[in-house]
């Protein structure tokens, strides 16, 4: 029994009655592709900007800012999907990404021979993504056994445990050194590590991931997932398999994080225990919360701000104090604008135009926090 079936059933039973006041505005039937909001001007502008970006930006901006933001945004978006729409804040998304990166390095080529098998790149990437997705499913299966606030503890424990495993184990993970020189392949005569090709590679996957999530959220599965976020008991009573939906959400988020992880590993050219350490586990949460978890685009916004801060905050203050800046920004967001930049923007917009519309955001306000 799907959510679409239920919606239809509910709509059929809705008879207009005189005592009910104004009848609700008729909406077009929502099939996954008939978007409520058609493609608007700002979508086109953003797309054109993203595609044209390398033409006017320096290689530094294309690679360090553009590609890095998109790769990090993809990983953070998996958390937005899981947290904002599934109600489960997992701190292990970077662990999943790191597992994908490690697997690519282990099966593929890296500087440390003996622990790298040197298989062709497509096989290594495929295996990396599959293994990381399986790991994410396993993490999900473990952590959905408990609810709400416990999730954050369990996923953090799993993430830190993997960090120590990667740090202490030399036979497979090469210990503290990690895997150096993990580069994207040369294909069609293009070396994909060069700034512009790499940017387009990441842009392609970021767009694909974004559209996939936006699409998925309108399918019966996505609707059911949001229902489970808002009221798991009711959804259970309606006959939905709550645990199954949650584990599936972990698996999908894991797939997205794994792709992001491969790209981020290629971006860095290495994967070390440091890239799955607590710092990065939390950075992903910081990025997702910074942008706002109400919409998948928030993750990319957060990533851009994060990367800009990382690169330019050091000009204002000491380089060593980046953590202090990012911690303070994160604290300020959590304390004063719980819905991140998106929430702040929505509040600003409704204040400026003073309209009741656009309050799609307002309805959702604090939903993430209200649940637990």
């Amino acid at each position, binding site marked *: 029994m799907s959510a679409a079936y239920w919606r239809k059933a509910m709509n059929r039973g809705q008879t207009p009655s005189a005592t009910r006041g104004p009848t609700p505005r008729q909406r077009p039937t929502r099939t996954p592709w008939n978007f409520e909001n058609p493609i608007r001007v700002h979508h086109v502008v953003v797309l054109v900007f993203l595609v044209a970006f390398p033409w006017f930006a320096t290689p530094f901006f294309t690679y360090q800012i553009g590609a890095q933001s998109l790769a990090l945004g993809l990983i953070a978006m998996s958390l937005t999907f899981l947290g904002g729409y599934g109600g489960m804040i997992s701190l292990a998304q970077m662990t999943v990404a790191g597992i994908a990166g490690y697997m690519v390095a282990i099966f593929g080529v890296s500087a440390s021979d003996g622990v790298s098998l040197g298989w062709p790149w497509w096989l290594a990437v495929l295996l990396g993504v599959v293994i990381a997705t399986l790991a994410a499913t396993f993490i999900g299966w473990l952590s959905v056994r*408990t609810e709400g606030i416990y999730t*954050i*503890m369990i996923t953090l424990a799993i993430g830190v445990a993997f960090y120590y495993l990667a740090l202490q184990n030399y036979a497979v993970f090469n210990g503290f050194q990690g895997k150096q020189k993990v580069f994207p392949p040369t294909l069609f005569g293009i070396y994909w590590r060069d700034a512009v090709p790499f940017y387009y590679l990441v842009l392609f996957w970021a767009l694909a991931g974004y559209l996939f999530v936006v699409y998925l959220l309108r399918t019966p599965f996505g609707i059911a997932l949001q229902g489970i976020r808002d009221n798991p008991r009711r959804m259970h009573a309606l006959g939905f398999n709550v645990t199954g939906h949650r584990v599936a959400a972990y698996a999908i988020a894991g797939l997205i994080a794994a792709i992001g992880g491969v790209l981020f590993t290629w971006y860095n050219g290495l994967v070390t225990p440091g890239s799955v350490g607590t710092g990065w586990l939390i950075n992903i949460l910081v990025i997702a919360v910074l942008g706002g978890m109400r919409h998948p685009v928030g993750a990319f916004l957060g990533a851009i701000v994060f990367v800009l801060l990382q690169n330019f905050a050091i000009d204002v203050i000491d380089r060593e104090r980046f953590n202090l800046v990012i911690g303070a920004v994160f604290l300020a967001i959590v304390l004063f604008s719980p819905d991140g930049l998106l929430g702040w923007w929505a509040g600003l917009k409704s204040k400026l135009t003073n309209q009741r519309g656009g309050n799609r955001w307002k309805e959702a306000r604090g939903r993430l926090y209200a649940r637990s």
Partner: protein
Amino acid sequence: LRRGWKIFWSVVIGVPIALFIAWALWDNERLFLITLLNGLTLASLYFIVAAGFTLVFGLMRNVNLAHGSLYLLGGYLGFFTAQYTGSWLLALAAGFVGAAIVGLAMQVSIFRFMPGQDLRQTMVTIGLSIVIADILMWIIGAQVHQMSPPDWLDGPIRNIPVIKAYSNYRLALLPIGIAIGVALWLFLNRTRVGMMIRAGVDDRAMLSASGVNVNLVFAVTFAIGAGLAGFGGVIGAVELSMAPGEDVRLLLASLIVVIVGGMGSVVGAALGAAILGLAETYGLAYAPTYSVVFTFVILVLVLAFRPRGILGRPA
């Protein structure tokens, strides 16, 4: 059937452990016994730190992810106190009081204003842990600090059968941990404030309705929980060492201890600490590069069969 399962699981878990003990004793009894002592003393430290964590969680549903930072803060405070006064006992007091004050400030100035928003409180503690860790690194630097034990606990004890010699200080951790556990038990079960805390763990709303100032109880609990982290920090500053990153290690230990033992239960924390301490030291002694895997396997097994921890109760 329930009894049958109990017997089944005791056999499945007990037999491999018994076999391992038999093999290890036959193979190298000294290594086995020293590892046992190391495990128990480490468990004692874990218990002290995790007891504070579980106390705060049990009452306020606040997962204080800044607990590790409070541990490190207490350790540094103790280190500098010991440096200036030369007294280890004063250092312990400074670690406890310093961390308690910071914890109290956190509760009074931030968490009090977001009651019932567990997730948001947890996120705030994440932010605080980043900020505290970085400020500590700013002021104190990244180098490793190690505190020396007090004179009357320094040096090894000799002439123990089989083991031969063992660090006096490490051995002293065992009675310290037990004393803290007993004191905590007495405080929670025999005093009025303890009674209020236990009542609050069971039903916050009812406690408030019966005329108790819940905010005050919360503040006291948070101060004690944070203080225990600081206390553990001073103890750990001698046994382990203090450096950026140690906060994460102890946070992970606290998380696993309370997940395994059951959240909000002090006895559960003791049990979880014993399991984790022993698993970690035996892992390090017998399979060095995979020691964290044992910890992880224990976590997975407990979550798979008792999602609320061994002694956990439904929330």
